[in-house]
C-alpha cells in the first residue's frame, strides 16, 4: 500500500532528474564524441549524432609514445604528450612531498608541546584561506627574481606543496588525535623510539586520512591552472595550461583538445580509485576497550 504511493512520483520530479543528468553527463559526452570525430565532422554544419568514430585525435596527442607512426601525421608535435608527463610528474611528486611533510607536521602539532603550537595550528589553516590569485604576483616575482626557479617543474612542485600543506596538516591532525595515546605509550614501553612510534604505530593507523589527503592534494595539483600558467615555460607546461594555450586565433584543433581533455580525466580517476581503497573505517577497532 505504502509502496504504491512511494512509487508514484510527480512527473516534474523525473523531468528535473533528467535535466540534472543531462547537465552532468552532457559536457563529458560532447567531449568524448568530439574527440572521436574527424575535423571535417566537427566543423560540418549538419552536426549529427552519426559519425565514423576514429582514434586519430588520440594518436595525434600521444604520437610521442606510440610504437608506430600514425599515417595522417606529417610531423609529430610533442606538446600534448610532454604536458601529460609534466602533469603526472608534478602531481605525483608534489603529493608525495606534501604527505611526507604534512604527516610529520600534523603529528608534532597534535602530540608535542612546544611554544607557539596553538598559533601554528590555527595559522596553517588560515593560510589556506588566501586565494591563489592573490599569491600569483608575489609568487611569480619571488620564483623568478629571487629563486630563479620559474619555468622548471621543481618550481611548480614547490608552490603546490606550499598550497596544499595547510589543508593536509589540518585533515591529518584530526586523524592523529583519534589514535589512542595508550598505543604510543605501549610502543614506548616496548622499546620504540619517537620515529619508530611514528612509522610503525601511528602511520599505519592513519592510512585512511593519508589516502583522503592524497586524493585532495593530487586533484588540486592536477587541475591547477593559474599558478602553473604564470610559472611554467614551454617545457614544463601542465595539461590545463597547454589546452588553454592551444586555443589560438589561427588554428583550434578541437579534436585533439578534446582527446587531451579525455586523457586528462583518466589519471585522477585511477588515482582516486586506488587511494580510496585505503579508506576503511574502523582502523583502530580492537586497540583499546571502547
Amino acid at each position, binding site marked *: 500500500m505504502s509502496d504504491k504511493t512511494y512509487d508514484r512520483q510527480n512527473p516534474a520530479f523525473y523531468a528535473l532528474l533528467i535535466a540534472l543528468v543531462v547537465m552532468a553527463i552532457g559536457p563529458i559526452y560532447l567531449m568524448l564524441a568530439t574527440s572521436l570525430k574527424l575535423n571535417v565532422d566537427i566543423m560540418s554544419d549538419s552536426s549529427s549524432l552519426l559519425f565514423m568514430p576514429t582514434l586519430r585525435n588520440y594518436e595525434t596527442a600521444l604520437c610521442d609514445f606510440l610504437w608506430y607512426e600514425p599515417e595522417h601525421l606529417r610531423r609529430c608535435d610533442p606538446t600534448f604528450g610532454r604536458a601529460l608527463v609534466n602533469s603526472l610528474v608534478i602531481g605525483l611528486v608534489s603529493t608525495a612531498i606534501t604527505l611526507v611533510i604534512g604527516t610529520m607536521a600534523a603529528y608534532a602539532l597534535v602530540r608535542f608541546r612546544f611554544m607557539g603550537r596553538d598559533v601554528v595550528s590555527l595559522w596553517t589553516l588560515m593560510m589556506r584561506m588566501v586565494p591563489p590569485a592573490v599569491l600569483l604576483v608575489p609568487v611569480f616575482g619571488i620564483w623568478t627574481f629571487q629563486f630563479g626557479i620559474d619555468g622548471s617543474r621543481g618550481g611548480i612542485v614547490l608552490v603546490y606543496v606550499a598550497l596544499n600543506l595547510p589543508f593536509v596538516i589540518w585533515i591529518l591532525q584530526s586523524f592523529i588525535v583519534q589514535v*589512542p595515546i*595508550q*598505543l604510543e*605509550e*605501549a*610502543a*614506548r*614501553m*616496548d*622499546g*620504540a*623510539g619517537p620515529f*619508530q612510534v611514528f612509522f*610503525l*604505530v601511528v602511520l*599505519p*593507523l592513519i592510512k585512511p586520512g593519508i589516502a583522503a589527503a592524497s586524493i585532495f592534494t593530487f586533484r588540486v595539483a592536477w587541475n591547477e591552472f593559474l599558478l602553473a600558467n604564470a610559472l611554467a615555460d614551454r617545457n614544463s607546461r601542465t595539461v590545463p595550461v597547454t589546452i588553454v594555450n592551444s586555443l589560438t586565433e589561427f588554428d583550434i584543433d578541437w579534436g585533439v583538445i578534446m582527446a587531451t581533455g579525455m586523457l586528462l580525466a583518466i589519471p585522477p580517476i585511477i588515482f582516486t580509485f586506488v587511494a580510496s581503497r585505503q579508506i576503511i573505517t*574502523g*582502523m*583502530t*577497532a*580492537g*586497540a*583499546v*576497550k571502547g
Partner: protein
Amino acid sequence: MPEIRLQQLRKDYGAVNVIENLNLEMADGEFTVLVGPSGCGKSTTLRMIAGLESVTGGQIMIGDRDVSLLEPKERDLAMVFQDYALYPHMNVAKNMSFALRLARMNKSDIEARVKDVAATLDLTAYLDRKPAELSGGQRQRVAMGRALVRDAGTFLFDEPLSNLDAKLRGQMRAELALMSQRIKKNMIYVTHDQVEAMTLGDKIVVMKFGEIMQAGTPEELYRSPANKFVAGFIGSPTMNFLNAELVDDAGTLFAKGDGFSIPLPDARKGALQAHRDRNIHIGIRPSSFAEGPGGLKMPVILSEYIGAQSVLISELGGQRVSIEINTVAPIRAGEEREFTVQGDEVHLFDPKTEAAL
C-alpha cells in the same frame, strides 16, 4: 630482578600537587599492589615508575640505578595497560613480538618465544587474528603475552582486569597469581579492587590523596589496620564504624556506646589508659559478630542469603551495622537475634587523627 625504591617521590601537574614525598621499597621478586580509591595517585605512581610520566622531584631507583630521568625503554620494564592498548593493525603474533623485533632479535628465537608464551596463555589458535577479532578476555591475554615475551626485570600492571566481567576477572586473577608464582619477577600492580589486592599481593600499599596510608602484607592490613581509612578499605563487606566512649568499670575497660558495651581485653589496657573517658570510634568487621545467647539484641532489617553465609543489615544504637555469619538456612528479615563480639576483635580509632589506638 633488582629491588625498586621510591625516594621522596613528588609529582605536580602545574600548581596541583598530586604526590608528595612518597617513599616505598619493593623487595626483589615481590608482588606489590598499589590500591586506593580513584584519584589517589596510584596510577600516576606506576606511570612514573614506567617512565611515561615525568618526575617532579625525588628519585626512582631500580637496583643501584637512578632511572628517574631515563626513557621507558632504558628501564627494563614491561607493562600491561588497563585498556589493552593492542596494535590494531598487527595480528596477535606481531603484537606479541613487537618489542623483540624492535630489539632486533633473530627470527627463529622470536618465533620460539612467542609460541611458548602463546601456549601458556592458551592463545596458540589465535596467533593470526587481529585484535578486533578477539573477545575481551582474549585481548587481555594478548596484552599479558606481549609483556611476558619480554624477559624484563619488572612487570607493571595498570588495572589490567578492570574491563572484564566478574567471572572472567576471577579466572584471570587466578592465572595471574599462578604466573607470578612461576616467573618470580618484580611485579607492581595497580587496582582499586581490594579483593584483587588481597588475593594477589605479597605486599599491599594503600594510598589516599597521594600519600601512603599503610604498606604491609594482606594479613597485616586486615588484622591491624593503621588507621580508619585502611580499616574501611580492606575487607568485604566493609568494617562497621560506631561512636563509643572508653569507660573503666571495676578495673575493666569497656567500649560503651548507644545500646552496647563491649569489654576490652586487659592486654590493651596499658595502651588505652590515656584515652579513658574520651570519645573514640570503634570498628567491628561484619565477620567478627557471632550469633549466640547473652549478646546484643539486634533486629534483622535486611537479610542477604548467599549460601554458606548470610550478610545481615541490622541496627545498633541507631547506626546501620552489617553482620556476616555462617548460615544453614536463610534468616528472615524482621526477626530479632542475639550477637556477641569478642573484645580483641574490636578496632579502636582516634576520632580526630583516625589513627588506630
